[in-house]
């Protein structure tokens, strides 16, 4: 029995993304045009009631040699193997939308998930079906930090909710009627203060980010029901599923939710308030003959879904704002930081310089995403700071280190004699550096600087790891709503191109201003006064 394990990393790598876009554009554009003609056959979420002819697979033996997918970190391989001993391959995804897309495009054959997510996916997509048998039954739980004194209170609050209310909630959120899915307002007094809840932002219908960035879902509304009972207000922090448990453990949130199914392993890390029966279900394709599994809806329909419906363009705008904020602040602070450190080290003592070199080496030597997570979960672990703030700190450190290295290299290209000549004319060390050396070093520094700025805006695409909703993250959210790859991905790519172009434009203007051969000459307009 041979099995391979493949992990699909979150699609955050800008280079890979650009490449994918190129390939997609060249292959798919002709295909899209032909797609437009038979658009009426496509199952959109609006006509989810379309008839299907049952699941493609109905018995465990049907899954022999097939690919089964689940979320990264979901420890259910053994569970699947106990039913289907000869699974062909396991693949892992960081989000549900990617997984559903993979299922529809036949990159995988069955998607393991809990009953809530699976029900919604099937209710929405007429070409998907639930595999008839549940792999295992369990229960959903809200996660509290180990030994948290508040857990008991919340358990008591939960116990007051009637079964009918719970069932109505379940039907509301797993159904395909989008208009019903609105969150109640927190209109109780909230005398007992405000608590923070960490919730997953892409696990529709349990907890996800809706239009306008609002967090909603079954879990979220359930938390509100309990909160109302306890008379507290709740501040929801949306993040990756994988981040929730660390968030609760570090004390940044009182409780975590995101269709977390209680397991023994998880019980060792956190305590739970159990709230709804869970089941591990497989989603498979419906076996309607002749229906094409096309990734791409007709252009106008896709456009409508990606941008217009539920005002999703606002999500993109917010994402652009966040991405630009992080990038521009990091460029400004990083440039200042790197330059100031260089100036302090220029004539500094050897020990201080060695420490600086070590720190620069450290910052440049680790993946930025690791740096960000260390900052977020360890260094600022016990402090309440926003992910955006931490991202700015992280990228400022990174950019500062790069600036330090750049300036150091650039200044080293200027001959030592320049400094000596300036000294011999009576310049002080500082003035000589700024008037003579730096001006000659800048032309050597600027090309690298421009390159690093372009790299930085794309590097910020990983801030989703620390619960920041930047452009890339917003693209993910839209994909999770539309279950479509093409439009959200292409749009995000194009927006990055445009943002990079705009930044480059400004830096080019800056470069022109300081180009020594283009500056205003000292002798401009000077004439010898004729005093004869």
């Amino acid at each position, binding site marked *: 029995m041979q099995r391979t394990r493949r992990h699909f990393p979150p699609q955050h790598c800008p280079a890979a993304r650009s490449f994918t876009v190129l390939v997609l554009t060249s292959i798919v554009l002709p295909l899209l045009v032909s797609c437009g003609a038979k658009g009426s056959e496509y199952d959109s979420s609006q006509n989810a009631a379309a008839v299907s002819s049952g699941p493609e697979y109905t018995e465990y033996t049907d899954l022999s040699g097939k690919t089964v997918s689940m979320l990264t970190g979901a420890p259910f391989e053994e569970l699947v193997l106990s039913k289907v001993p000869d699974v062909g391959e396991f693949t892992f995804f960081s989000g549900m939308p990617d997984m559903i897309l993979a299922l529809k495009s036949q990159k995988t054959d069955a998607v393991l998930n809990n009953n809530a997510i699976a029900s919604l996916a099937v209710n929405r997509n007429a070409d998907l079906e639930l595999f008839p048998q549940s792999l295992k039954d369990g229960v959903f739980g809200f996660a509290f930090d180990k030994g948290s004194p508040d857990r008991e209170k919340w358990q008591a609050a939960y116990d007051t909710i009637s079964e009918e209310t719970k069932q109505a909630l379940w039907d509301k959120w797993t159904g395909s009627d989008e208009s019903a899915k609105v969150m109640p307002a927190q209109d109780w007094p909230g005398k007992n203060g405000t608590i923070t809840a960490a919730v997953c932002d892409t696990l529709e219908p349990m907890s996800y980010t809706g239009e306008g960035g609002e967090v909603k879902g079954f879990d979220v509304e359930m938390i509100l029901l309990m909160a109302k009972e306890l008379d507290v207000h709740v501040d929801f922090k949306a993040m990756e599923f994988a981040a929730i448990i660390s968030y609760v453990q570090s004390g940044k949130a009182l409780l975590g939710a995101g269709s977390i199914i209680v397991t023994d392993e998880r019980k060792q890390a956190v305590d739970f308030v159990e709230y709804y029966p869970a089941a591990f279900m497989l989603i498979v394709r419906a076996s309607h003959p002749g229906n094409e599994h096309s990734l791409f809806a007709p252009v106008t329909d896709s456009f409508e879904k990606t941008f217009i419906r539920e005002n999703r363009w606002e999500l993109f705008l917010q994402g652009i704002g966040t991405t630009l904020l992080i990038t521009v602040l990091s460029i400004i602070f990083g440039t200042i930081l790197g330059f100031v450190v260089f100036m302090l080290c220029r004539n500094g003592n050897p020990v201080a310089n060695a420490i600086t070199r070590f720190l620069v080496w450290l910052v440049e030597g680790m993946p930025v995403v690791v740096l960000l997570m260390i900052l977020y979960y360890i260094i600022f672990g016990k402090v309440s700071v926003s992910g955006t703030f931490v991202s700015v700190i992280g990228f400022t450190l990174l950019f500062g280190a790069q600036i330090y290295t750049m300036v150091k290299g650039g200044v080293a290209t200027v*001959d030592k*004699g*320049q400094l*000596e*000549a*300036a*000294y*011999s*004319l*009576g*310049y*002080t060390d500082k*003035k000589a550096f700024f*008037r*003579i050396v730096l*001006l*000659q070093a800048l032309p050597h520094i600027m090309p690298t600087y421009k390159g690093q700025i372009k790299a930085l805006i794309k590097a910020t695409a990983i801030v989703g790891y620390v619960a920041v909703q930047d452009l890339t993250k917003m693209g993910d959210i839209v994909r999770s709503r539309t279950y479509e790859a093409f439009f959200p991905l292409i749009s995000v790519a194009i927006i990055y191109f445009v943002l990079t172009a705009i930044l480059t434009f400004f830096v080019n203007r800056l470069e022109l201003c300081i180009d*020594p*051969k283009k500056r205003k*000459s*000292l*002798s401009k307009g*000077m004439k*010898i*006064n004729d005093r004869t």
Partner: protein
Amino acid sequence: MIELKHLEKKYEDITPLKDVSTVINDGDVISVIGPSGEGKSTLLRCINMLERPTGGQILFDGVDITDPKYDVTLARRRMGMVFQSFNLFGHLTVIENLMLAPMDILKRSKQEAYETGIALLKRVDLAGREHQYPDQLSGGQKQRVAIARALAMDPSVILLDEPTSALDPAMVGEVQTVIRDMTGMGKTMMIVTHEMSFARAICNRVFFMNQGGIYEDGTPEQIFDNPGKDLTRRFIHRLKVMELKIESPDYDFIGAGSEIEQYSMRNNIPSRIKYRIRLAFEELTQQMLFPVLKHTPVMITVEYSEAESQAIVIACYGGGRFDPSEDEDNLSYSVLKGAVEELSYTYDEEDELSNTIRVVIRE
């Protein structure tokens, strides 16, 4: 006036300046000459504190500029410096190179700086080049701009550190012309150079640097025509020197013979001169002196001047007056006298090695 008091510059491995004391008067034009690596450039760079001395003092118009509390930029404004490698500011045009420091440091107006700059460019014969960048100029032109840049600050002292060493031979002349012209401005000048005839032509004082200090200090006539010390004379005449000390008749004369052979090879001494140097050495020591002197040590010095194609062998010894020429029967003396240009004997009671025999050999 610049006064150096026991100036010392020490690096970890070498000490180019050991104990330098001298007074440089206003208006002095001083050539600093001497073998490579004897601290000529270091001395110059210490005077304007580009190199911080490790000991001693420099008094510039009575102020101790080596005092850590003293702001050296004040002294440097009044001491122009011209470097071997020009060090023009590459990002500025010629005229801007001349305008920048007067505007930044002396707070001159733009117009004033420009006018001074243009006038100086004319003086160094570069009128019309003001808007070019240094990398568009030849080496000689760059050095002339560098001189003009130093003059633009109107310094009272100008230090020139081997100003023509990095130039093509064809361009040395134009820079020397400018420097010669500068000597007429009444500024104190110090120029480190290897061009002896140029040094002699422009200066009124010469420092011969050797053994970590100013070995000899005098007028050009004294230093170039009549050096007081042997090392100076050898440097000026570019003499190749070999010294042998013979302490007894047991001396390894065969070994000394091959040393002379090697010395001659190294310095391209023609074989006829070499042959006579050996002859003189052997006749003087083995035949004439040792039979009489026995155990009195003899110093033999051989000096060869390629320019004059002439070698001089000098034998010095103590132990009372002894002139071999007085011994009429001495055959060796006659042989040697017949083979060489000049053979003379002098006696100086004052000297420890009171007897001196001088043999001049020409081709």
